[in-house]
């Protein structure tokens, strides 16, 4: 019984890993292939970060999303990658929540750059909640399927 439950849990974590890894890869990639200014504008809309930090943040976040998203997708440094992405998503949630509370004029969250996916602040907040919970689960669970970690014999 326990064995079956464990297998289901591993399977759920694996699906979650693929799904979330793909989301972050897409999110980072779509921001990185467009001029950085677009993401800078999106950050400015949230009116939270001093101007002098905006460029640096716009430069770093998409790379974190892409690289750790790919790591998670492939199951490389699974726990660490899930932890990093959970932290990042937690920060996104704070940023989104303050924008929702302040009623800022933002039509679309800017989470996926100018890509095909366009989410409102509320939709994005909801998605991030699901992501954070799943990432925490991935980061704290053992056992895995189809992962580089397993292939490289490292937990």
């Amino acid at each position, binding site marked *: 019984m326990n064995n079956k439950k464990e297998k289901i849990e591993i399977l759920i974590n694996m699906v979650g890993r693929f799904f979330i890894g793909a989301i972050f890869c897409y999110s980072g990639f779509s921001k990185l292939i467009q001029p950085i200014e677009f993401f800078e*504008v999106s950050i400015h*809309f949230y009116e939270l970060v001093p101007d002098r930090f905006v460029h640096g943040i716009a430069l770093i976040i998409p790379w974190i999303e892409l*690289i750790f998203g790919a*790591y998670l997708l492939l199951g490389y440094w699974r726990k660490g990658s899930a932890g990093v992405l959970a932290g990042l998503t937690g920060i996104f949630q704070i940023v989104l929540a303050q924008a929702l509370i302040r009623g800022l*004029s*933002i*039509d679309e969250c800017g989470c996926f750059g100018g890509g095909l996916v366009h989410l*409102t602040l509320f939709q994005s907040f909801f998605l991030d909640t699901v992501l954070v919970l799943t990432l925490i689960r991935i980061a704290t669970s053992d056992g895995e399927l189809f992962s580089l970690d397993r292939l490289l014999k490292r937990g």
Partner: protein
Amino acid sequence: MRYLGVGFLLAGLLISLVYFVRNSREMNQPISIEAHKVRGNPKGPVFLTVFSDFECPFCAEVRHILDDLLKVFPDTLKIVFKHFPLSIHEFAVPAAEASECASDQGQFWAYHDLLFERIEDLYKTKNVNNVFFGLAKELKLNETQFQQCLESGVKKALVTSDKNEGKKFFVSGTPTILLNGKKVMTQNKFDYLKQEIEKSLNNE
């Protein structure tokens, strides 16, 4: 060591992929300029395109900054207005349509200014069209023509077209300002915009 190597290899592959795709794409699509929504010198070599929403308080503020810039660069700058009504703003689309109806009578900018000043009136009425008609009356527009235009919804396509153009340029909020239809202005501050315009003029 092998484990770390795999990580670096993966990161390297991703960085190469991004740079390859980035170099094969270029944002060089031209932005459309409609004469009735141009302020400043129509032949000015530098232009700012502002994607704006009448219900957006930041757009109302930016309007004054743009006016100040026109005073600094009277011969070299033109401002191009584009509608980008946000879906979170209930009256943004009808307000944009009303401004287009006013532009049929050559009063786009006068109506634009008045609308930004009186936007609060929209929240105090049960029929927003009455506010739009009132502003048209104040500007001495032909009321029948204005009313027919607004009620027919004939300007909806134009407003949508502006918004779609914004989306092509990855606009996601308002106000978004582009310099010469290409470079995205990351700040809506007078000094920053002035500096960017000067840089553009020096490169002419």
